[in-house]
């Protein structure tokens, strides 16, 4: 091939890559535009004050995001309360204590959790975890916030474990050696030196796990009971923003207030998730710098 043709191929490839890049950006911008233009149409009908302060989501009359938002956070925070300690300790165990043979077995297994489809996890929630919780707490209905939290915790676990592990591994060996040489044991070194030093990375892990939990739809739709009222506890049924959109979008009449309302709650969720993910990325980047 002579160099002239090679240059031609080169510029053609450049064009393709450029095109792909622009397409992605255009798609993003398009989604952004769609969400926010429709949200604005919603706020022409309903005042933001009602939207953010009311207590009822009733698609004919009341459009307050509060019950959905509280449900969403209740489930997501619950899942983090379960997944963060478990994930961080698993990561610490894997990188600091486990023999190499166990590491090579456990790591892929944990990563495989991420490959389970959310509908399968939701199914497990309905037939297994939910009934189990109902029995455990002596209640009628196991399809509640706690059930969603447990399932989301399982789903967020791979993210949290693998990022926490990166964070822990990025702590220089010299810190651990300093601690051991002073006569600290493994636990003291882990809890007083390694984990504090890995803290920014652990925050990144939590944020990205939380982002995953907030955006998850199918599992919570199936497993949390779908009651759009402000929950008073973990054992109440809830309905998250994502589940609401998934349930109502199929039936809503086109271009009604209700229709726009679904865009508005999606837009808000988008903003929240974006802020959380950016925070996570910010800390993850600090981790990479620490590494170099």
């Amino acid at each position, binding site marked *: 091939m002579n160099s002239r043709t090679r240059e031609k191929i080169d510029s053609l490839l450049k064009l393709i890559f450029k095109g792909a890049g622009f397409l992605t950006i255009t798609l993003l911008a398009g989604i952004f535009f769609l969400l926010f233009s429709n949200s604005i149409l919603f706020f022409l009908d309903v005042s933001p004050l009602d939207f953010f302060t009311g207590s009822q989501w009733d698609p004919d009359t009341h459009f307050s995001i509060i019950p959905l938002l509280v449900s969403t956070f209740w489930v997501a925070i619950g899942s983090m309360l379960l997944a963060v300690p478990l994930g961080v300790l698993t990561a610490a165990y894997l990188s600091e204590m486990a*023999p*190499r043979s166990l590491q090579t077995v456990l790591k892929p297994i944990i990563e495989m959790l991420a490959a389970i489809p959310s509908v399968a996890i939701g199914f497990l929630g309905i037939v297994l975890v939910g009934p189990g919780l109902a029995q455990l707490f002596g209640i009628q209905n196991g399809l509640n916030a706690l059930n969603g939290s447990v399932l989301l915790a399982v789903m967020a676990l791979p993210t949290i474990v693998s990022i926490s592990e990166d964070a822990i591994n990025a702590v220089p060996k*010299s810190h651990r050696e*300093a*601690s*051991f040489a*002073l*006569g600290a*044991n493994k636990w*003291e070194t882990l809890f007083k030196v390694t984990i504090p030093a890995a803290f920014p990375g652990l925050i990144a892990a939590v944020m990205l796990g939380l982002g995953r939990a907030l955006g998850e739809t199918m599992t919570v739709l199936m497993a949390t009971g779908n009651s759009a009222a402000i929950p008073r506890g973990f054992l109440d049924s809830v309905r998250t923003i994502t589940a609401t959109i998934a349930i109502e979008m199929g039936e809503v009449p086109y271009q009604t207030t209700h229709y726009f309302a679904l865009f508005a709650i999606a837009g808000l969720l988008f903003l929240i998730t974006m802020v959380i993910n950016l925070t996570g990325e910010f800390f993850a980047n600090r981790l990479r710098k620490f590494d170099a």
Partner: protein
Amino acid sequence: MEEIKLRAENLNLYFGKKQILKNVSIAFPKNQVTALIGPSGCGKSTLLRSFNRMHDLSPDAKIEGKLFLENLDLYDKKNSVTDIRKRIGMVFQKPNPLPKSIFENLSYALNIHNYPKHSIPNLIEAALKESFLWDEVKDELKKPAVKLSGGQQQRLCIARTVVLRPEVILMDEPCSALDPLSTKKIEELIEKLKENFTIVIVTHNMQQAQRISNKVAFMYLGEIIEFDTCDTIFKNPKNELTQRYIGGHFG
């Protein structure tokens, strides 16, 4: 007759299948500075680290032979490794302050060994004075230790070791990352520390070994080739390898 503080008897050490230390027997006299010299990779750090059992952390290290701190068998399963490390402190090649404040770098060591809370500030002050660092940091003990200069960081690491009142301090090329002025300070410090501690120091710097040590061991390919007083090693070495190394012909 000098009193022996720390010794190894017929020590063999392997990383995996590779033998790094070969039948090493050596005894370090109390309250003296013993320097370990020898070309890179000959096993100086490995020997040093076997005394405070740092090799416990590498699963593929295998140790044969005996090591003693006075009468204490360092590898006897009955003896606590954390106690051993408290009695045999270590200063590393690259200053490695913990990512905590100056004060916390020392209080960490004390807390681990359950020193009473009220005694901690005084012990820290004394250790920082003893390590020639107090005057430079006394007004900023809360400052992150990593903000100190390299030489100050290394003196902090020495203070952190000293604060536990160990019997032996192992130093692995403590000045190799430092400028000449900081190096001089550390050498003066070592000179003073030997009144209270037994010091074993690895160094690449022949002048440094001559300046600070009472005895010198020359190692080559995992063996102790010659071990004698500083004067003998540098003025009158018996072994030809030692002569050539001292003369700068390899290394």
